[in-house]
């Protein structure tokens, strides 16, 4: 093969490969570098106090599921927390607010955190994970009889009932077992 052809072709291949990789790079919404991020769904909870104080009535949701501004709003309205009183002493309240906002979705380089942030406009301040666009898109193909009308599940807020590894931060669809229905995949 002619030398010039080789040069041209090598240049072409390299540039296409590099362009290919670069296409995937979007960092603007997040403060951490994309490369080296985790394939894991969401960062597991690393604060025992959070698990204890906020995991008694419902599963302690990983902070990586909501933006910091959402967590802030939730933490200043604990007196009426979705109709319940979830008040804390002010020291604990401050500590947990810091933990939540430090580990919120925009600061976490994990699959679900990334997708969640990209699906929200900068104004959106969702208070319920289950009402976010991303969550709904992932769960909208489930018939009613499987969650809402299933007496063993009842609500989408009860992640741990179907996502068997939720407390480890894993929400892989292959691990889903719906009570009364067994394994459930796409």
């Amino acid at each position, binding site marked *: 093969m002619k030398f010039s052809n080789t040069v041209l072709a090598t240049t072409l291949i390299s540039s296409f490969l590099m362009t290919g990789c670069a296409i995937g790079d979007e960092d603007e919404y997040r403060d951490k570098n994309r490369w080296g991020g985790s394939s894991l769904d969401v960062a597991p909870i690393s604060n025992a106090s959070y698990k204890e*104080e906020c995991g*008694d*009535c*419902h*599963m302690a949701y990983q902070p990586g599921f909501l933006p910091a501004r959402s967590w802030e709003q939730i933490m200043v309205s604990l*007196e009426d927390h*979705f*109709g*319940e*009183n*979830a*008040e*804390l*002493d002010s020291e604990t309240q401050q500590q947990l607010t810091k933990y939540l906002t430090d580990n919120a979705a925009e600061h976490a380089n994990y699959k679900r955190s990334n997708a969640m942030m990209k699906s929200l406009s900068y104004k959106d301040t969702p208070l319920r994970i289950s009402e976010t666009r991303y969550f709904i898109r992932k769960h909208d193909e489930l018939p009613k009889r499987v969650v809402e009308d299933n007496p063993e599940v*009842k*609500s989408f*807020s*009860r992640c741990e009932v179907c996502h068997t590894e939720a407390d480890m931060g894993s929400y892989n669809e292959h691990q889903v077992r719906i009570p009364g229905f067994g394994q459930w995949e796409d």
Partner: protein
Amino acid sequence: MKRIILISAAMIFTSNLVHADVADEMLAKFQQQGIQANAQAGESLWNKTFTDHKTAQQRSCTSCHGNNLNHPGEHAKTGKAIKPMAPSVNSQRLTERKKINKWFKRNCKWTIGRECTDQEKADLLSFLSTL
């Protein structure tokens, strides 16, 4: 062997005493303020039904803790299991002051609509620590 059994029994006995201590400490403090705890009043307060003025929902301690405190309860909204309230069944109950105060604040406010008075707290503590 006999010695091991004796020592173990002594440890279990004292640890139960230690557990009862926190509730007792709090009751003792209330007594110093001139409050006489009444376990029966505590029991009827526990079982009383209140109406939430915002939603008209009927609320009681039993709404979440259930009617038999030796059994687990279930959160009325989320369905999450709540460990039994009776200290004789669940040795973690009434052992941490911070926890006791946290739940008094949250749950009195949710159930009754206001914080419990010191008298009510004393009554409830003395009722629960008999279980």
